[in-house]
């Protein structure tokens, strides 16, 4: 048994309590002080419901796209060396580092009706900026590194010889992917998906520029939080925030339980 559990656990619990739980408890109290009916009223309006549907849908869609793109990119980065690989590898973290407002402004400039990409796309009849599609695009940008970075180490640990052995035994590519790779990748893949989803659900800065903010159509839930605050309705804002938080928390908790469950002697995949 290693030493240091009481001290390190004590410090960890204290830090979590002070840095995470104390601030979050204000939200719970602010929401808790509302009457049940007021809480429901704050959430039940068609506009709020529409924004929840949009935020959930866009976050799920973006997490799915980011996961698919992330798998492809991580695979290529790990398995197929090409000139400039280190450079591309470094770029993956860019969305973590670029302030979300800059990302939002930049994406809107690029994909807006008069932008480099927006103009040709619009000629093809595809509108990106100011549509739900634009929101998904911004969230894919935000979520991509989560997916790539969780998959990369797992892919690096996979031994290609296993796949070669499977191929020698007559397995098809499809079978190799489904039977050999997927089971190993799944935990990391889900982690990346959930992190991208949780981050996307609450994202504000990069989305407001490109979304168009039309009520019932392209208005995301975090924007409604801001709107409520503008109207001095802290309790209403807290109610929406609590719902978003609960969804993310349950998602992450389920994920961590799943990780703990799927952990094996060689370590939890990340």
């Amino acid at each position, binding site marked *: 048994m290693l030493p240091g559990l009481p001290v390190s656990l004590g410090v960890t619990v204290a830090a979590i309590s002070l840095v995470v739980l104390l601030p979050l408890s204000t939200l719970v109290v602010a929401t808790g002080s509302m009457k049940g009916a007021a809480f429901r009223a704050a959430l039940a*309006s*068609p506009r709020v419901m529409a924004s929840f549907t949009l935020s959930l849908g866009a976050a799920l869609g973006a997490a799915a796209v980011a996961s698919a793109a992330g798998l492809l990119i991580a695979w290529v980065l790990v398995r197929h060396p090409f000139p400039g690989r280190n450079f591309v590898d470094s770029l993956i973290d860019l969305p973590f580092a670029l302030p979300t407002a800059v990302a939002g402004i930049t994406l809107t400039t690029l994909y*807006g*009706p008069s932008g480099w990409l927006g103009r040709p796309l619009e000629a093809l009849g595809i509108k990106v900026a*100011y549509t739900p599609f634009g929101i998904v695009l911004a969230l894919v940008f935000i979520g991509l590194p989560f997916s790539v970075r969780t998959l990369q180490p797992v892919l690096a640990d996979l031994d290609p010889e296993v796949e070669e052995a499977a191929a020698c035994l007559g397995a098809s590519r499809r079978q190799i992917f489904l039977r050999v790779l997927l089971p190993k990748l799944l935990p990391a893949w889900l982690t990346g998906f959930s992190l991208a989803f949780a981050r996307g659900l609450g994202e504000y800065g990069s989305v407001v520029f490109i979304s168009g903010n039309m009520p*019932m159509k392209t208005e995301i839930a975090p924007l409604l939080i801001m*709107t409520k*605050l*503008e109207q*001095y309705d802290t309790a209403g804002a807290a109610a929406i925030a609590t719902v978003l938080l609960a969804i993310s928390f349950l998602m992450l908790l389920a994920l961590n339980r799943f990780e703990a469950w799927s952990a094996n002697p060689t370590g939890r995949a990340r």
Partner: protein
Amino acid sequence: MAAFAAPPPVSASAPAPPPLTLLNVSYDPTRELYQEFNAAFIRHWKKTTGQDVAIKQSHGGSGKQARSVIDGLGADVVTLALAHDIDAIASSGLIAKDWRGKLPQGSTPFTSTIVFLVRKGNPKGIRDWEALARPGLSVITPNPKTSGGARWNYLAAWGDALKKNKGDAGARALVEGIFKNVPVLDSGARGATTTFVQRGMGDVLLAWENEAILALKSPGGDRLEMVAPPVSILAEPPVAIVDRTVDKKGTRAVAEAYLRYLYSPEGQSIAAQHGYRPRTPEAAKVRAFAPVKLFTLESVFGSWEKAHAAHFADGASFDRIYQK
């Protein structure tokens, strides 16, 4: 990591604290105005009292700024887009309830109005509020829920219909028609202007007159044109001293002088140069303002409180436009 290793302490970056500092918490479009006005007031204060004063600025959406002051942002004076926001601060006890009577003209040293900004040559022939509701037109305005300027836009259109004796039903139809034509609702006035000017969205932008004047001078402004509607609202962005702060800091005298200087010939002339309609006829000669028949909010809607409850509160008439 070396780059982050040794930043000098923040305090070293500012010179020794001057004897007096004022913090003016304001809304978005006034940045340029107060930059110039502050310099003028600092000179004036030095000349009359021999004392140095430093003025700090904070800008943002009017509602957000008011909320920050309520939550503890130490503003000596607030200069916001609508009386409703200062009333909100007053009801939290930081400002005396009778603040509107403390300075001349309802504590509003200059006014503005809402005008249209269109593409050069006005290709869609937009002249008045009814034209905005024409099917197929694309109108850019920020979101009245989050932008002070947008509330004036909305109320101007509504009031125009009432002035033409169309009644509430006619006014609702006009405003609904206009917002049906809005493809993007930015959260603030500046965002809406960028959408219109730089992204090339929309046929017409509803804007503060001073914002329109500024946009005409900024890059891309040569491809735009301002259209003044025959009738519009008298937009009154008010100012007030935050009593709680100035009493604690002992800055009441200078804060009051600061706001009063807005009414002085120099203050009025600076406001006019930046496209705000001054109160004095002398300053009004600085720039030719378009002849618009202006109605006050009180004459049509009674008070901000009533206008807010009827139009912008949750579930009120603005929300109903989108919930059909």
